[in-house]
């Protein structure tokens, strides 16, 4: 032993052990900060709940309607197919090409993408089945086979041989099929040019293969992908395989070649399936007499093609309607004028810039279209062109540079859809009750010879004065859907609506109380109408107003114009009924407020305006503080008396209210001071830890008796990259729970994000189906031990180049409003909450982190915000996720006007709020601005903040100023109260009673790390001691 005491050896060992100890301690710190992520991946839990006896007879407050997880999986499968069937939109059906006759027709499915169609999103909502769980998605070929359709197998073989070289890409390090967007979580300075359509040229098709398609029906699949963190860009004009396209949403050269081949090698029948939620340019298909039918199927999720196949063979008549306007050109909408990648002239890379890269403040988006999104532009300009108003016929904004002509601009209008049968609709009555609920009565009759469902779309036109408040000529107000009607059968639907949703927001109106901004109903005639889409609706109104149809244009053969289906209701001016607590809150989002004249907004008073892209923008002195992420400061104040760590003897379960038999009947009213007493029991460190670590695994708060609460990303169901199946959040200690799924269960690793994408769901126009989808999401919550779904996405398809259309329902606010509300209600009925995202104006994906988004307040309130309003103001409890972007120059979650004035004060929202994921370095999403503005919890870990300018809330440097700012602490407690209020009513309380306690335990990996640290510490001490002894020995 003595021989080992050599100075050199001891120095070397000391260097090794001491430095490894430093590294280990650092990694320990990182691991602890990310413990929830690690626990999620390893399936470990750090908190356990213990109940000693219970005064409650049954603590399973939310029970499943299924006796096994298999039953639930089967129910989801069936519902997914049903939604996709009802969501398929028949756009063209010449010569009754559809339905197919499976007894006499053999089908050749054209397009390499048919082998692996795009089912969900690339990022955000992937629909990848779990191979380990034996799960299998249904592609178009599988679905046709299941339904007994004979198809040409030679093509599948050919595509299989070529698939790897054409269509595979990688994501998360794994090779995946069929996706091609360029995803970037970082900012990108130039438009991405890479987009791979994934088709082969005609020259690749061998003659014998083509011969095999002769005398078969051609089914051509056209596919575009969709993804979080990616957009389409105008720079995309070709792909690496030699395919070229005018725009990424136009037909590519190879697709045109395939269609030509299909025409040549078929029985003369060519059917095109649109496998895309991005609005493609399909006017040439519509006009082509050799294309017999077009069926939009969107991205139908894991089993949706089974429903699509049902429509193709006529087992079900199509009843879906478009959720977006299919314009002739993807670039013709005013929303595209300023969409794209724009950085401030004084961005962080410019010489002498006041901004730093760390500010994440370089990029901006100006939404110069104002309220005229989607059909609200095309149909409003159409009406003005008919009425000769606002220079609507001018060449500005027209596709070919000549006078603007609706027929040249739109292929299929919003809300349009065909059926295998025909229906008549009669608007019989409209009752409007300002301040109350109103309704319309519509009689629907199946006038064809096939059974089917029909959608009733109720539209309204508000009185417009030239030069006055901007108003769309037509807007969807409400909708309903019939049951299956047999030929000749009629049904009467009562469609309810709320007049607040056709009020206009007047930013300039000064109210009696001196505040500015109000919801206004102008005096005049309001025209209510029904129609197969927005164009038919506006035509009905015009026919009514003009007393004839001479000047009116129809663009599809089955469109009708019926003046009798427009009912005028005269209303008096009202500017108070819907304006309680309302005042301007988003004026700072108008770029012209900072730099007058920067942008010309689209206006129907002069349609020649708004077509010039905004010139370069230099961030002004006024814009800099918020761009530099200094929206709020901690300042000493004694505004509130703050108590932390009180011993009030309450627990979260004690806020639940039971009847005499021990059955749960509700929770303590939100305004009851008992909630404040409960929150005061929380210690400040607990509060900091909770609010700064709102990951998918909310930390337990022992002081109020609540263990880990789990939530997970959506919106098509819990996504498999984070949950990995039904067993993910269970451990053996839960095995007595009735919905427990163990690790050996066949469904343990089942992928849960199976449902069709949101546009497909919305295109059903069926509130009952969406509610049922929510109920099954709630069931997933019960069977996974998860309490919240981060979804639905409630942003709008503002610009068609936004790559995330699959996670948002529609271009229309009211369709989105209703769908989101129904989904939330269904989900909440099972004790699982939805988290509406992304609040708000998250309208572009590239550079979304810190993107300054400029718009008018009227536009936001009548479109983007109105989409959230239905669910947020509804009875179901839920969460809201703030958006990555800035509102004007202020982070959305840190924007007082958005988060407090609108969400809490005007809408009375009682649910909880959190940010989107704040990665390390995202200082603009800092806890200070977020919590102060009412933005609630931070979806991140403290570690992510620890190195940013503001640091972590728990950093020693922040403690004195935080302790001195009672107003900030009050906001912390308010945020916690909202979280707890939702938790107390949710399935998170299953298994918890007032007698439950929560204990922190060390997980196996924490013990392992601790052991390694201790071992290295001992070795370091020993080697340093040896070094000292060796030095002494040498000296002696």
């Amino acid at each position, binding site marked *: 032993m003595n021989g080992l005491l050599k*100075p*050199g*050896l001891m*120095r*070397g060992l*000391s*260097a*090794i052990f*001491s*430095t*490894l100890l*430093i*590294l280990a*301690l*650092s*990694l320990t*710190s*990182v691991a602890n*900060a*990310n413990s929830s992520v690690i626990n999620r991946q390893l399936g470990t839990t750090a908190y356990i709940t213990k109940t000693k006896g219970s005064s409650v007879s049954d603590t399973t407050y939310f029970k499943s309607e299924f006796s096994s997880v298999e039953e639930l999986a089967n129910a989801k499968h069936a519902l997914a197919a049903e939604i996709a069937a009802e969501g398929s939109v028949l756009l063209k059906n010449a010569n009754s090409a559809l339905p197919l006759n499976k007894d006499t027709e053999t089908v050749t499915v054209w397009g390499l993408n048919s082998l692996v169609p795009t089912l969900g999103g690339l*990022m955000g909502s992937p629909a990848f089945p779990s191979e380990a769980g034996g799960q299998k998605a249904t592609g178009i070929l599988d679905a046709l086979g299941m339904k007994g359709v004979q198809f040409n197998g030679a093509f599948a073989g050919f595509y299989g041989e070529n698939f790897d070289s054409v269509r595979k890409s*990688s*994501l*998360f*390090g794994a090779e995946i099929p069929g996706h091609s967007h360029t*995803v*970037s*979580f*970082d900012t990108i300075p130039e438009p991405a040019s890479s987009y791979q359509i994934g088709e082969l040229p005609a020259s690749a098709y061998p003659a014998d293969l083509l011969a095999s398609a002769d005398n078969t029906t051609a089914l051509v699949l056209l596919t575009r992908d969709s993804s979080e*963190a990616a957009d389409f860009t105008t720079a995309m004009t070709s792909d690496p395989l030699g395919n070229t396209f005018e725009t990424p949403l136009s037909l590519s050269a190879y697709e045109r070649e395939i269609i030509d081949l299909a025409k040549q090698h078929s029985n003369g029948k060519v059917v095109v399936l649109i496998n895309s939620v991005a609005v493609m340019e399909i006017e040439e298909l519509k006009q082509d007499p050799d294309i017999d039918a077009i069926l939009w199927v969107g991205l139908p999720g894991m089993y949706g093609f089974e429903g699509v196949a049902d429509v193709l063979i006529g087992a079900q008549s199509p009843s879906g309607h478009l959720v977006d306007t299919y314009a002739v050109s993807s670039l013709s909408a005013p929303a595209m004028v300023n969409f794209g990648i724009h950085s401030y002239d004084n961005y962080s890379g410019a010489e002498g810039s006041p901004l730093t*890269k*760390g500010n994440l403040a370089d990029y901006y988006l100006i939404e110069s279209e104002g309220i005229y999104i989607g059909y609200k532009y095309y149909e409003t300009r159409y009406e003005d062109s008919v009425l000769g108003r606002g220079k609507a016929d001018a060449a500005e904004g027209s596709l070919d540079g000549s006078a603007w002509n609706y027929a040249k601009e739109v292929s299929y209008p919003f809300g349009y859809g065909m059926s295998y049968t025909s229906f008549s609709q009669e608007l019989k009555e409209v009752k409007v009750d300002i301040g109350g609920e109103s309704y319309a009565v519509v009689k629907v009759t199946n006038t064809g010879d096939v059974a089917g469902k029909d959608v009733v779309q109720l539209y309204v036109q508000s009185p417009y004065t030239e030069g006055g408040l901007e108003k769309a000529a037509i807007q969807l107000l409400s909708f309903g859907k019939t049951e299956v009607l047999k030929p000749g059968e009629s049904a009467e639907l009562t469609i309810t609506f709320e007049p607040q949703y056709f009020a206009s927001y007047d930013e300039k109106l000064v109210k009696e109380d001196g505040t500015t901004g109000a919801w206004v109903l102008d005096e005049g005639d309001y025209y209510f109408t029904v129609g197969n889409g927005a164009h038919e609706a506006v035509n009905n109104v015009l026919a009514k107003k003009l007393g004839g149809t001479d000047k009116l244009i129809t663009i599809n053969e089955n469109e009708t114009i019926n003046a009798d289906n427009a009912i005028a209701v005269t209303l008096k001016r009202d500017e108070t009924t819907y304006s309680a607590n309302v005042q301007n809150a988003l004026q700072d989002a108008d770029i012209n407020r900072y730099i007058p004249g920067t942008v010309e907004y689209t206006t129907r008073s002069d349609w020649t305006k708004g077509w010039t892209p905004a010139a370069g923008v230099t961030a002004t002195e006024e814009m800099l503080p918020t761009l530099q992420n200094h929206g709020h400061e901690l300042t000493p104040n004694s505004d509130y008396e703050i108590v932390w760590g009180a011993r009030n003897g309450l627990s979260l379960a004690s806020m639940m209210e039971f009847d005499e038999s021990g059955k749960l009947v509700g929770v303590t009213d939100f305004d009851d001071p008992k909630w404040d007493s409960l929150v005061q029991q929380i210690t400040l460190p607990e509060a900091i830890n909770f609010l700064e670590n709102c990951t998918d695994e909310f930390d337990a708060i022992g002081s109020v008796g609540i263990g880990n609460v789990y939530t997970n990303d959506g919106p098509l169901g819990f996504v498999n990259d984070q949950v990995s199946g039904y067993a993910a959040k269970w451990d053996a200690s839960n095995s007595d729970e009735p919905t427990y799924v163990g690790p050996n269960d066949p469904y343990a690793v089942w992928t849960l994000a199976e449902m069709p994408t949101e546009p497909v769901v919305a295109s059903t126009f069926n509130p009952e189906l969406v509610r049922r989808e929510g109920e099954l999401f709630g069931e997933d919550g019960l069977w996974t031990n998860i309490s919240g779904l981060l979804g639905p996405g409630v942003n709008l398809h503002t610009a068609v180049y936004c790559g995330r259309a699959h996670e948002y329902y529609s271009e229309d606010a009211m369709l989105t409003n209703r769908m989101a509300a129904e989904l939330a209600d269904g989900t909440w009925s099972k004790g699982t909450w939805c988290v509406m995202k992304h609040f708000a104006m998250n309208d572009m994906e590239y550079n979304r982190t810190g993107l300054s988004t400029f718009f008018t307040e009227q536009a936001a309130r009548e479109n983007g915000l109105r989409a959230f309003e239905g669910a947020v103001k509804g009875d179901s409890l839920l969460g809201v996720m703030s958006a990555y972007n800035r509102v004007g120059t202020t982070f959305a979650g840190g924007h007082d006007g958005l988060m407090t004035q609108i969400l809490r004060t005007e809408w009375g929202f009682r649910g909880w709020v959190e940010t989107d994921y704040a*990665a*390390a*370095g995202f200082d603009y999403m800092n806890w200070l601005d977020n919590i102060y503005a009412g933005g609630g919890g931070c979806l991140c870990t403290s*570690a*992510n903040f*620890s*190195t*940013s300018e503001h640091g972590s809330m728990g950093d020693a440097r922040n403690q004195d100023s935080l302790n001195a700012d009672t107003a900030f602490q009050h906001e912390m407690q308010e945020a916690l109260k909202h979280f707890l209020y939702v938790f107390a009513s949710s399935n998170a309380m299953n298994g918890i009673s007032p007698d439950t306690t929560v204990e922190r335990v060390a997980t196996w990996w924490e013990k392992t790390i601790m052991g390694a640290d201790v071992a290295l510490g001992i070795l370091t001490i020993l080697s340093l001691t040896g070094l000292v002894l060796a030095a002494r020995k040498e000296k002696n």
Partner: protein
Amino acid sequence: MKKTAGFYLSALSAVLALVCIFLYGSVLFTSAYVRPLLIADVVVSALVLALVGMNKTVPFGNVLPLVGAVLCMGAVALSIAPMVNTVVFAFMGMNPMSNAQGFLTFAGVGLSAWLLAVIASFAGIVKKAA
């Protein structure tokens, strides 16, 4: 005094630490303590090595590589936390690798400096330290 191989390895380690100070400028998300640690390493190394180079006696001079290793590793260890997300995202394909590249280069050079210092620790910088 006879210089050992450790003298030259320590000098090389200090040079790499100096390079690291500049490389840290290209790292996306940073810790405030990294550069001071590296600067301390470079300054202490330069002083000790210069004195030894001039045949001056430096008390505990042979401990220099150990101190250098500790300072280098301290800097690298502290640089990890702010960049964890970025690096993980880059390897998952969710971020461009260029975001992580600066950090990975810095960490690679930093660990090289540490390794040289550790090797030098075994040898010391002079044959007979005072």
